């Protein structure tokens, strides 16, 4: 795990992720300015660090209602504003980017941050960027696989010789600057289906699994499939970290947590996805067997520990700022995480 800067003896890592969505608060129907949203993201990372949270990541999305299209620029600002929290993309759309440029950006962020940068590389659930940059959607799979492989090669080799279909060849190319400690942790973003996880396993790369909702048991199958595929490909699964990411919201009671979060999720999904989140499904999110970590701090502690027992993952990443969630509520959540949730999780997962 050392290669990925993870130390299991300190317990499971706890992180936050934001998609950088810029949606109205359904309570007030108001939208803060893009400037304020970006400032609040930076501030959120600072508060997360102060609360002892291990990891903070920012997503890249190129569509209406999002503000972190230039997510590496935002991460760079976070790198400067913080001192010890790990920072990452979640995810970088590698399919439509040049891996050389992505690597240059993140290696630079790594230097600015003193060795805290990571990359989570995904393939976009939206196609806006394909149109914007002139890529053909029919190359969806191949673009991702080729560019992800190149990104890893640049990470592993100081001098790169490479040729592929979607980018000019690299001949004895040195991609500079190099990260502080020689390489960056690079994760493969997986949408929660076994098929995608199996590909990460075959490649022997860490898996960052995002999920919206559903029972832990279903996602356990995905994690198991990932490790099995890694083993089949000759990798040692115990050397490959797994991260899970999904909805999180803590309040005094699970009922209050559901009540406060639901309008944000539902309205936000309507605008960004075209369909709301059914109440019936959301209500099940409070169940101890659900992957959604919504409830009182004690309930959340129990859920995360149960998930850890099932997944054996090294990092959990919470998404709580979706859909115009007011900043004071985010601060309250960070307080609950820092004071109650984090100490318990660390205590029970440290090996």
């Amino acid at each position, binding site marked *: 795990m050392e290669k990925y800067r993870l130390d299991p003896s300190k317990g499971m890592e706890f992180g936050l992720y934001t998609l950088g969505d810029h949606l109205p608060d359904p309570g007030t129907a108001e939208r803060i300015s893009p400037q304020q949203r970006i400032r609040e993201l930076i501030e959120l990372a600072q508060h997360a660090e102060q609360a002892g949270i291990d990891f903070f990541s920012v997503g890249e999305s190129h569509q209406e209602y999002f503000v972190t299209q230039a997510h590496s620029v935002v991460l760079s600002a976070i790198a400067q504003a913080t001192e010890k929290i790990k920072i990452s993309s979640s995810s970088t759309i590698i399919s439509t980017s040049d891996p050389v440029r992505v690597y240059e950006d993140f290696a630079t962020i790594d230097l600015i941050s003193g060795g805290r940068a990571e990359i989570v590389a995904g393939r976009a659930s*939206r*196609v806006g960027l394909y149109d914007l940059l002139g890529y053909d959607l029919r190359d*969806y799979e191949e673009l991702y696989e080729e560019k992800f492989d190149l990104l890893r090669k640049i990470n592993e080799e100081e001098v790169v010789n490479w040729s592929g279909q979607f980018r000019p060849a690299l001949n004895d190319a040195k991609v500079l600057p190099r990260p502080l400690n020689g390489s960056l942790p690079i994760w493969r973003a997986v949408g929660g289906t076994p098929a995608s996880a199996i590909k990460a396993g075959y490649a022997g790369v860490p898996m960052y699994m995002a999920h919206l909702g559903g029972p832990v048991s279903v996602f356990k199958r995905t994690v198991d499939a990932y490790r099995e595929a890694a083993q089949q490909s000759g990798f040692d699964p115990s050397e490959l970290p797994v991260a899970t990411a999904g909805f999180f919201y803590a309040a005094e009671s699970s*009922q209050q947590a*559901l009540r406060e979060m639901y309008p944000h999720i539902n309205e936000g999904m309507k605008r960004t996805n*075209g*369909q709301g989140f059914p*109440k019936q499904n959301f209500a099940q999110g409070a169940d101890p067997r659900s992957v959604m970590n919504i409830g009182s701090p004690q309930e959340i502690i129990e859920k995360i520990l149960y998930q850890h027992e099932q997944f054996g993952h090294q990092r959990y990443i919470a998404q709580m700022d979706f859909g115009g969630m007011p900043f004071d509520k985010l601060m309250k959540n960070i307080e609950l995480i820092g004071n109650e949730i984090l100490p318990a999780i660390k205590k029970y997962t440290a090996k």
Partner: protein
Amino acid sequence: MKVVGLSGSKVGTKTRTALDYTIKSVTENYPATQTTLIDLADFDIQFSDGRNYLEYEGDTKYVLQSLMEADAIIMGTPIFQASIPATLKNIFDLLPENAFRDKVVSMLVTAGSPKHYLIVEQQLKPILGYMKAQIVQTYLFIEEKDFHRKEITNDDVLFRIDRLVEDTILLTETYKQIREAKEAEYDF
């Protein structure tokens, strides 16, 4: 309540004719409803390429959004080659898999032969079920002999159109009440 009539083919006129009668029945009997008739023959629709439905442009976007905003959809389809037409299947492919969740969908079918009666059971209903529609079980099957020069000449068909409309509206209202009662229980 928003009701969309969808005529699922670019070929022929019988499905459209039957849908015209149907939408007329909706507006006459339920004036408070907001109706839209979408005849795929009038639109230039892209083939599905897997993107989110919000990301299509032009006619494709208009048709998909109208369907997604509907409370009830009355779907009209001819039967071609013992099957639903490709134009209609493309609409299903363009939409998300839960597109018809919390929507009522009813069907009317025009066919040249009574031998095609079970195509709806075998092809259309499984798709609608998969996409989470509340299906009006009884559908309307209209044969070629019931039409004459873009008019329906069989009174039995006209009665059945009115009954299909009644069933569609009744189920939509009832389902809405059931859902609201259930959601009120959640207290969030």
